């Protein structure tokens, strides 16, 4: 059966948040035909989300049924989500920037690797990402939280609980402020203001939280992009002069193979599937670093009991944030982390047995609960920077294949030796900070834990100036193929110590600027 050929100026593979940023910017600024290829399904429309949210609240059901492909179960940590909008259909909408130090840890502290761009260079793209997403934020202390322009939206107001908790952290000498979030504090771009439904992750029922389907909806409505769903890109093919000539894909509905021809290809498949596609296609890997230097950050979280009357449930997904610990004090061992504080009900939930193990029934349960809620609990968490190891990697798994016969990836995160050696000490230091905070508030730490995985994964196609030491340049253009870009998470050199999505968006917009140079400016 002959292949069906689809031609465009730009072919974007994947439809997650990075793809949405690239497509929107190109469609606005350049005269170029854009085709987007998504392996998953359409995401459920906004009007269905209140009902889907209800099922989530009542039964724990995922509001995003079938947002993943069967037969794509991989070895290693991987967040499953393939649908229009990608994982950012689930996200919590938390959008801190990385800190200036994240981009130059080698120069400043002698560990890890510097990025090929500085925070200052990325600042305009951060601003643009904040405008496109609609970030509501509070300016932190400028020396800790520098930014070229104000946030586009006023901060999400602190709840009564967070105001009380900020009084506590102020007493402890830790400046904290409202966590920037891609949630509307006022109506924005046709979407309503947040009204504290408090299920941002996994689903906002009213569309106050940004998700990429809004961008795709607008672009498709005005026919600025063509988005094909249920279409799996299997290979990128080399053409003349080291360029990528076309991508070969299959429709999950069967039929002839598809051949996407484009002047520019943009791989926007996130940290796992971008590297997998490059590896199976055997492209862009002259350095041998495709799939290497997977990165993220580790965390320590805890619960602190405080002599404060709090009212859990006011807006539990919103938090305070501090960047105070993102700088290493002179002469101290390398440890950089953020700090966040939330309201919590942990340790103060209703229970069915008392401390002696006696069963409680009827009025006893409520009476016991009331006794234990006269004071409150804060949830605290610190993400700390982990230097990625070269062998923190995604490789092709010879034993597992997609339904189309391509090898699935296997992921194995590894800390670089300096981070591995410092892990126990780092986590102990953070636990000590929690204890110090608790003491300052007259409280106590109830519990702490550290997840075994690296959160907010990224990397695999890291950027750099040296083609022997990186997969792409700072614009996301692969060193090896002039017309092949990788955008967003995979290009990160490190995972920093804050949620990465805004940084992925800023990097993607910067890539879009470079991609756009090949096409006429839209008048």
């Amino acid at each position, binding site marked *: 059966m002959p292949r069906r050929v689809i031609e465009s100026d730009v072919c974007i593979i994947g439809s997650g948040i990075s793809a949405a940023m690239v497509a929107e910017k190109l469609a606005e600024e350049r005269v170029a035909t854009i085709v987007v290829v998504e392996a998953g399904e359409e995401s459920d429309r906004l009007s269905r989300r209140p009902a889907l949210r209800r099922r989530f609240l009542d039964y724990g059901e995922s509001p995003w049924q*079938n947002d993943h492909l069967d037969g794509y179960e991989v070895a*290693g940590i991987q967040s499953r989500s393939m649908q229009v909008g990608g994982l950012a259909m689930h996200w919590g909408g938390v959008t801190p920037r990385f800190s200036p130090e994240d981009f130059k840890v080698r120069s400043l502290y002698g560990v890890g690797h510097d990025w090929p761009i500085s925070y200052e260079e990325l600042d305009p793209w951060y601003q643009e990402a904040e405008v496109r997403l609609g970030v509501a934020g509070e300016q932190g202390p400028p020396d800790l939280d520098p930014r070229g322009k104000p946030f586009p939206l006023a901060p999400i107001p*602190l709840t009564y609980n967070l105001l009380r908790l900020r009084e506590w952290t102020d007493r402890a000498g830790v400046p904290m402020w409202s966590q920037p979030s891609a949630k509307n504090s006022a109506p924005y771009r046709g979407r309503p203001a947040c*009204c*504290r439904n408090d299920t941002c992750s996994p689903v906002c029922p009213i569309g106050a939280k940004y998700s990429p389907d809004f961008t795709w909806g607008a672009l498709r409505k005005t026919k600025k992009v063509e988005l094909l769903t249920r279409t799996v890109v299997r290979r990128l093919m080399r053409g003349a002069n080291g360029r990528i000539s076309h991508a070969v894909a299959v429709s999950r509905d069967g039929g002839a193979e598809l051949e996407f021809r484009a002047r520019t290809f943009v791989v926007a498949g996130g940290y796992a599937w971008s590297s997998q596609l490059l590896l199976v296609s055997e492209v862009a890997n002259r350095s041998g670093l495709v799939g290497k230097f997977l990165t993220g950050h580790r965390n320590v979280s805890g619960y602190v009991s405080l002599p404060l009357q709090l009212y859990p449930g006011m807006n539990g997904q919103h938090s305070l944030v501090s960047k105070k610990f993102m700088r290493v004090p002179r002469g101290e061992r390398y440890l950089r982390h953020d700090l966040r504080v939330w309201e919590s009900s942990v340790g103060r939930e209703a229970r069915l047995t008392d401390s002696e193990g006696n069963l409680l029934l*009827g*009025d006893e349960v409520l009476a016991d609960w009331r006794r234990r809620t006269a004071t409150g609990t804060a949830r605290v968490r610190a993400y700390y920077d982990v230097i990625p190891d070269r062998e923190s990697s995604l490789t092709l798994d010879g034993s597992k294949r997609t339904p189309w016969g391509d090898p699935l990836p296997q992921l194995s995160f590894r800390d670089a030796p300096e981070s591995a050696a410092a892990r126990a000490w780092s986590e102990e230091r953070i636990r000590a900070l929690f204890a110090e905070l608790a003491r300052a508030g007259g409280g106590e730490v109830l519990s702490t834990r550290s997840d075994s995985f690296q959160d907010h994964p990224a990397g695999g196609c890291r950027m750099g100036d040296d083609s022997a030491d990186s997969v792409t340049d700072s614009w996301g253009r692969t060193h090896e193929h002039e017309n092949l870009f990788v955008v967003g998470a995979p290009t990160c050199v490190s995972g920093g110590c804050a949620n990465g999505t805004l940084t992925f968006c800023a990097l993607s917009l910067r890539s879009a600027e470079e991609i756009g140079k090949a096409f006429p400016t839209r008048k």
Partner: protein
Amino acid sequence: MLARRHFVLQLAALLPLPLVARRVHRLAVADLDPGLLRALAAAVLPSELGGSGLERTTADFERWLAGYREGVELVHGYGTGQIQYTGPSPALRWSTQLRELEAASQRHHRMPFERLAVGERQTLVRSALEGQRVGGLPQIDRAPHVAIGLLAFFYGSPEASDLCYQARIGSSSCRPLSESARRPLPLREKS
């Protein structure tokens, strides 16, 4: 007649077929005695709910059970590639347990469970829960006993939280951002 129906239900429940499971679930929901359930609710839920609150909670619980679906994808979060699904319906287990409470009532008091005093009902519930691992509130569908299911259902609700704190927190409901900074109003005070 009841025993035969119960036997058929239990037999059908052994079959893994989703259609059979759905049918069994519907039959078991229909089999849940509303009078017994309300008598149980009055024994295990707080009296502060009052008659109307108890009725509302019990009716909501019945609706919750009727709406339960087996084998539906649960939320999958960060850090795992595994997809998990809702488990078997608790309806059959719970309807059986309700009948067992009734049988125990007849055995010990020679009268229906519904006519016992709240304290006597609680004694029977305590006896039924003997040997069960009870502590925190389980996921509702995993509650080992219908009494625990009712408790988990109510105490996991925003209404229970408001009742505990005597405040209009209204968690998980749409509330203006502009009211965030204010201490929640007392439960009985209108905003």
